[in-house]
């Protein structure tokens, strides 16, 4: 393999030990994969297969009942060895997360605008006023009709699909080199899904952003991804270029996932 990898995960193991319990369960088993700069890697797997845990471990965001071994190299440095102080500078600025559940990811008592402003201002020296103008600019990019009104609204006043688009606007505003998008289209209608995938495509092309695209839906992944990794029960069962895996899945679980996504596509034209 080439050394031009942006992200390189090797032998990742994640264990869970509940507080006060002395049994330790392994949830992620020896997962390894690489992501080249400018490429999109799809991570596909069923519910509970460990996609979210793997994504969060990249940014050291797991609750301390989880312990992680292995290595996660990003731009040459092992993220698992970095002190919190340095990881904080990478979060958002270098690697931005689009979390799985938009409804729960916004602080209910903080306005949409403030969410955006605080994110930008934690990495750049910006006045409040300029950050606000930038927020409006990025919301416009996400095709919001009235961004200057939107920034003074609160999360409970927006629908799930709108919040999902705000999540992407926040990510846009941070201009990271790697995006981890955790199920960015789940629970959305087909039109919104299409819109969001389109925005992610633009981000990839316009800003040359690399991406880990997490989904249980092969169809979603196939639209954007160059390569795909299939996770099943915390184990990586298959990886390869999207075309190859789609044409010739080796693992029966991969076949099931592909069949499921094709069936879904037929049912919802």
């Amino acid at each position: 393999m080439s050394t031009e990898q942006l992200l390189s995960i090797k032998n990742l193991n994640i264990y869970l030990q509940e507080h006060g319990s002395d049994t330790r369960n392994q949830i992620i088993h020896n997962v390894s994969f690489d992501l080249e700069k400018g490429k999109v890697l799809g991570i596909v797997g069923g519910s509970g297969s460990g996609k979210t845990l793997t994504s969060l471990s990249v940014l050291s965001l797991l609750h301390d009942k989880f312990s992680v071994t292995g290595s996660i190299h990003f731009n040459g440095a092992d993220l698992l060895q970095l002190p919190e102080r340095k990881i904080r500078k990478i979060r958002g600025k270098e690697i931005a997360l689009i979390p799985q559940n938009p409804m729960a990811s916004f602080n209910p008592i903080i306005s949409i605008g403030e969410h955006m402003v605080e994110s930008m201002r934690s990495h750049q020296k910006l006045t409040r006023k300029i950050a606000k103008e930038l927020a409006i600019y990025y919301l416009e990019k996400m095709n919001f009709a009235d961004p200057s009104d939107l920034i003074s609204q609160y999360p409970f006043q927006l629908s799930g699909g709108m919040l999902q688009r705000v999540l992407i606007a926040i990510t846009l505003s941070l201009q990271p080199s790697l995006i981890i998008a955790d199920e960015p289209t789940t629970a959305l209608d087909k039109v919104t899904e299409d819109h969001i995938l389109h925005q992610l495509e633009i981000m990839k092309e316009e800003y040359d952003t690399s991406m880990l695209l997490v989904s249980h839906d092969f169809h979603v992944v196939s639209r954007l991804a160059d390569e795909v990794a299939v996770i099943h029960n915390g184990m990586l069962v298959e990886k390869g270029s999207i075309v190859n895996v789609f044409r010739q899945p080796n693992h029966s679980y991969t076949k099931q996932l592909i069949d499921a996504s094709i069936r879904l596509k037929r049912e919802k034209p």
Partner: protein
Amino acid sequence: MIPFIFKRIINLIPILLGTSIITFLLIHLVPGDPAEAYLRLSQIPPTDEAAAHIRKELGLDKPLYVQYFIWLLDAFQLDFGESFITGDPVFEEAIYYLWPTLQLTLAAIVLTLIISVPVGILSAVYKDRLFDQVSRILAYVGASMPSFWLGFLLIYFFSFKLGLFPSGSRGTFVHIVLPAVTMCLVYTFTFTRLLRSGILEFMNQPYVMYARSRGLKERVVIGKHVLKNASQPFITAFSISIGNMLAGTVIAENVFAWPGIGRYFVSAIVNRDFPAIQFCVLLMTIIFVLINLIVDIIYAYLDPRIRLKGDQLK
């Protein structure tokens, strides 16, 4: 925000009227004749003739609802009658005694906040570490100590043994230290633990994780995303306790010979000084509803879901 506050103030009127009617009824329906109490306190032999005379003079011969309306009309002019004991207007007397009590309560509140907020935050941040352990043990000890006993302990050590603070009465700043500490200590420990558990609960919210994932400083994550949400149960508990604190001043007032409204109220009850009792109850109600009003305003300020309610939901 302004209409919200206005609506809340309008809501207070029936509450205050209701309380005044209930206290009025309670006082007048409870066995014991006000006229007799008046005569006893004025040391006049309670003959039937004298009682009838006084009844007429105090308006006690009129039907109850007439008496209430007379009281209410006078009340609008801040005339709440004269004390049976001193003969002075109860309004002036009660306000005179209220001030030291407010002073004491305020000092205790400030002291409670100054200690419990930072200690609560630190106990959450350093969960299960030494700092948290020590604060937990102190909380158990502090919360199980009766405040009068604590008061005597403080007097014994700091006043009697060390001579650092005066043991009683009111005067300069140093006089307030021991009674305020006595009042606040129980609350300080409970609130510390309450704030800690609130913070820990909100620490695991997905939006806190998302805040961290955007690279916000830990100070901002805790102060803005956790604390603002975690402060709401804290404020609720705190507002309830301010009432308890006010009521609890009576202990500190007695132990430290602090001339407050608690002692005034108790002596009014013991002596059946009806006008004083009626006004004290009303005064306490007013203070309680005002505290509630302030708390509601703070809630609305902190939480847009309350402030903007009616915007979207019916």
